[in-house]
């Protein structure tokens, strides 16, 4: 009964309008962080309030929604957000990446490549890539305005000086269309190449920090690096133990007290799809 008290997709139309304006501005200026009047959502900050607001503003009744958390469809965060939109918007949901029209994600880009017409919404904790280098917001804005990005390379320099290589492995800074340096949200750097020239629209929402930014389809995105220390999209050097995929991002799972471990795809839909197609990994038969 109380469900009827909500507008479609929870937010009222004026709020959605305000968020859509921010999204449009973000699409018009790829990589630029657009401030918006982030609302309180019925979940704590850090659970994806920014992503949820962007999703709510983009949803139409015909949409088919997929929600993933660290690649998986069945983790707490993904399940609660999916349930939330089923209840307040009544949209169809799916776990299949190809079938979804709108995908809200936390910390991963699906391993199945996206297609035109899809929207990928990222949950972003800290949208400012320069934040831990320069604490003043007034100054970081000025640095973006003046393209004063020397400091970003200082961070990478420090990585190499201390660890012998660029040790930043997630939230790896990228430069969008040779203009704005952008935080791709905490996706593993393995996913960074998928940001570039994607046929899907990519939207980033940071609820607590009140920022929205976007990558329109086929935007050129480059990961920052040094000439003699080029960017490497790294992953665990294994094949998936369930589906034998060697091209997907892997999670390491401890399976017993003797130090036994297995590597499995973090993208559950991708892994499931491959197993259904008959691919079997090292420990695959036991799992089925």
């Amino acid at each position: 009964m109380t469900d009827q008290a909500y507008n479609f997709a929870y937010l009222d139309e004026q709020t959605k309008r305000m968020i859509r304006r921010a999204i449009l501005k973000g699409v018009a200026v790829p990589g630029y962080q657009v401030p918006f009047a982030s609302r309180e959502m019925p979940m704590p900050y850090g659970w994806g309030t920014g992503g949820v607001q962007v999703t709510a503003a983009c949803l139409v009744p015909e949409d088919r929604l997929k929600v993933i958390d660290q690649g998986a469809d069945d983790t707490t965060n993904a399940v609660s957000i999916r349930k939330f939109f089923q209840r307040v918007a009544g949209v169809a949901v799916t776990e299949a990446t190809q079938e979804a029209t709108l995908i809200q994600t936390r910390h991963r880009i699906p391993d199945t490549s996206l297609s035109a017409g899809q929207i990928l919404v990222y949950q972003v904790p800290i949208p400012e890539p320069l934040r831990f280098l320069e604490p003043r917001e007034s100054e970081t804005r000025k640095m973006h305005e003046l393209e004063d990005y020397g400091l970003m390379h200082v961070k990478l320099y420090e990585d190499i000086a201390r660890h012998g290589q660029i040790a930043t492995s997630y939230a790896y800074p990228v430069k969008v269309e040779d203009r704005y340096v952008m935080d791709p949200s905490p996706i593993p750097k393995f996913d960074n190449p998928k940001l570039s020239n994607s046929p899907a629209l990519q939207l980033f929402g940071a609820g607590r920090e009140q920022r929205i930014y976007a990558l329109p389809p086929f935007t050129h995105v480059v990961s920052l690096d040094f000439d003699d220390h080029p960017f490497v999209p790294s992953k665990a050097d294994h094949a998936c133990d369930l589906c034998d995929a060697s091209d997907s991002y892997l999670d390491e799972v401890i399976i017993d007290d003797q130090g036994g471990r297995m590597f499995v795809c973090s993208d559950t839909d991708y892994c499931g799809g491959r197993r259904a197609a008959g691919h079997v990994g090292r420990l695959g038969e036991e799992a089925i």
Partner: protein
Amino acid sequence: MTMTLQNLAKDQPLLSVQGLSKSYGTRIGCADISFDLFPGEVMGIVGESGSGKSTLLSCMAGHMAPDAGRVIFDTASGPRDTVQMAEAERRRMARTDWAFVHQNPRDGLRMGVSAGGNVGERLMAVGARHYGDIRDTATDWLGRVEIAADRIDDRPRAFSGGMQQRLQIARNLVTGPRLVFMDEPTGGLDVSVQARLLDLLRGLVREMGLSAIIVTHDLAVVRLLADRLMVMKDGHVVEQGLTDQVLDDPQHAYTQLLVSSVLQV
């Protein structure tokens, strides 16, 4: 031929300050300051605390917007008024042609970044993207300011005050600026460390043909480093001239007081 060209170049001031004024409400910071600085020249600005020297330096270096006046710098594309310049352009100039050495090295250094990263920052800001080259240049510059090469990955926190100040100088000079602003570069250091720092600065200024503006209240510093001297009091310049001339034969009552106030050992 080269001689005449050089002479011609020297006829043009590197920095020309015209009628620079800055006030804080009704209080005067500095008023109607004008002077020319020629390439390779070191200018000292002395005066007691509150005489407006730091305000003047901040206005010239673009850290503060002056109320009136012009600061004309001889850029690669001819003389330009830096006060009217767009901020992007001024910042670009501030990290290539200019350098600013703060009194407190903590203001000029990034304390959470290693010495090598501190020296390399300006290089990376102007587009250096080769790690090996950046590191080689940083090592070279640490050597030039007498910091051992094996300290390159230490943070400035682990350095002594004198070393921090030398690191700040290396960080500023690495892009080969033409003009250096220094605000009390020897403040807070003990005398033996001061002496080494002054020695180092004098060497670098001569070797690189730098022009410099040094603000200090220490007359010994200007005696050693400066070619010309400007004495400020209450926001106004009361006397200026060659350093030795001003210090040995002060004309203005305040300069006489200043010179006679120096403790003799």
